[in-house]
Structure formats: C-alpha cells, structure tokens
C-alpha cells in the first residue's frame, strides 16, 4: 500500500503524521513536495496540519491552488483515499473535494486542547474500527476550525452520513455548525477533520484514540 504525505511550505505536522503512517503500514510514507507537478499513484494521500503558505489569505486557499493539488484531486477522483487533518481539512474544502468552509473560531483565539469527540459514523473507510457513537479524546489546535456550510449542504451531509466526528456536548471549541469536527465525501474515502488523530496515537502522548483511524484506513485499503 502506498501512502503519501504532501508537504507544503508551512506544513508542520507532516513528520507527526508520517510517524503514525509508518507505524500503521510498516513503511515510511512518500513525502511529496508541493511544487511537484506529478505524484506516483497512491492509495492514501494525507494533507497534514500546519500553516501552508503561511495561511495568510484564507487558510488553505493558496495550498488548494498549488500544482500538486491538481494531482491530488485527480487521484481522489480515481478513488485514492484522502485524509486532510486541520490545515489539510481547510485545503480540502478550499479545493472543493469537501463542501463547506472553515471559518475563524467564534472565540477568536487559537485553541489547543483535548476535545471529546463522538464518532458519528463508524462505517466509513477511516472510522470502521471505532464503535458507532463511541466517545474518544483527540486534541485540536487551530484558529480557523469553525465549520460552516449553508442549510442545504448541512442537510445533505446528514442525509448521506457524511459527518464522521462531532464534538461532544458542550465541548465545541470553535463554534462549528452541528458540532462538526470532521466530514467525508459521499464515498467515505475523503475525510477532513480539525482534530489531530496523530497527536493521540501513542500512550506516552496521552492516549491511543487516534491510532485506530490510521490502522482503520490501512486495513480498508489492504
């Protein structure tokens, strides 16, 4: 199985997620540079957290327009699984692979802390190792994680079971609509989420709740 992590200038969770992918697959992922116009065929493409291009205009907007993203979109259309974490989620919405947009946190501050998440759909390619409605703890770290979409988009997300994770009651760190923490496309193979599963994939770092996401997708793709 071939996994790749896209490295944008300003990505800063690329190494963290590579460590988790290597633990799950047994081999280090391919680290793909943003400026490359081509990308070997991949089974899983990860857009890591960070501040791509400084996130200076809108988070993820410049990365979404980078050469490598044309490749990522093309491979996604051919069926590759895509995981966008934090900044990666922002990039996925900016490039249209996922609907909606991530706006500034309603608290107006960057927030880094553990959050309680509910696995709202434990059926997709990423989440199948969790129990439906299981509560897990995964940290967030972002300034723009407030998921927003219009009413009809939100209704459609619900209808097609595209909401993968929601923040636990009273634990929404950013004001996201419907407490949305992560969504997928209709196929369930493209997942974008604000919380960082790679930061909770090892007991020494506080817990292993994030680990099943990586082992889960690797199993699905095997």
């Amino acid at each position, binding site marked *: 199985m071939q996994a790749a992590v896209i490295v944008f200038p300003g990505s800063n969770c690329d190494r963290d997620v590579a460590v988790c992918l290597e633990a799950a697959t047994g081999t280090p992922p391919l680290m793909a540079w943003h400026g490359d116009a081509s990308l070997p065929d991949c089974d899983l493409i990860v857009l890591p957290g960070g501040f791509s291009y400084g996130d200076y205009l*809108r988070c993820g907007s410049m990365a979404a327009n980078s050469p490598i993203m044309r490749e990522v979109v093309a491979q996604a259309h051919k069926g590759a699984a895509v995981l966008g974490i934090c900044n990666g989620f922002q990039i996925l919405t900016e490039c249209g692979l996922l609907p909606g*947009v991530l706006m500034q946190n309603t608290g107006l501050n960057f927030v880094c802390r553990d959050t309680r998440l509910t696995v709202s759909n434990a059926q997709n390619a990423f989440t199948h190792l969790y129990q439906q409605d299981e509560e897990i703890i995964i940290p967030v770290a972002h300034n723009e994680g407030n998921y*927003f*979409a219009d009413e009809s988009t939100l209704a459609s997300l619900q209808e097609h079971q595209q909401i993968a994770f929601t923040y636990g009651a009273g634990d929404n760190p950013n004001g996201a609509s419907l407490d949305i923490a992560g969504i997928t496309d209709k196929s369930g193979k493209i997942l974008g989420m604000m919380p960082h599963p790679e930061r909770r994939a090892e007991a020494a770092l506080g817990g292993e709740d994030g680990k099943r996401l990586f082992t889960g997708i690797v199993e699905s793709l095997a």
Partner: protein
Amino acid sequence: MKATINITLKSGVLDPQGKAIENALGQLNFSGVNSVRQGKLIEIDLSETDAAKAEASLTAMCEQLLANTVIENYDIQLDKSE
C-alpha cells in the same frame, strides 16, 4: 493600474470578528453602534492599462484565489485616475 478589492462576508454568514468589535466598542462606551462587519481589503498594482482587461483579470483572481465565494462577496474598484 491600481485596483482595490473589497471582500466581505455574505449576509447571513456569522461574523465573529465583527461581533467582537461591536462588543469591544460597547465596552469602550461608544454608543449607537448598530452593527459591525469586518472584511478584507486587497490593493493590487497591475501593469495592465486597459480597464476592461484589468477588470477581467481581477475577477478571475477573485474567483480563483482571493475570495471564497461560499461565504464571501467581492467588489472590484479600479482606480482609473492614472
């Protein structure tokens, strides 16, 4: 040719920054502030001298990069004085 692009949130989209400014103005005892919205201002200096061409190019920039049309409107003003 210089252009100014105003990027504002669509009405109906919540604007926490605007709201925060509104509250802060209240705390500073400015009264009679009915609402505040915050947007972005982008000033671009283009080599293009033809207004129509400049406008077309700026529109493309807004659509592709500068604005997220899911939540934002944009308004292009060309400074034709030069």
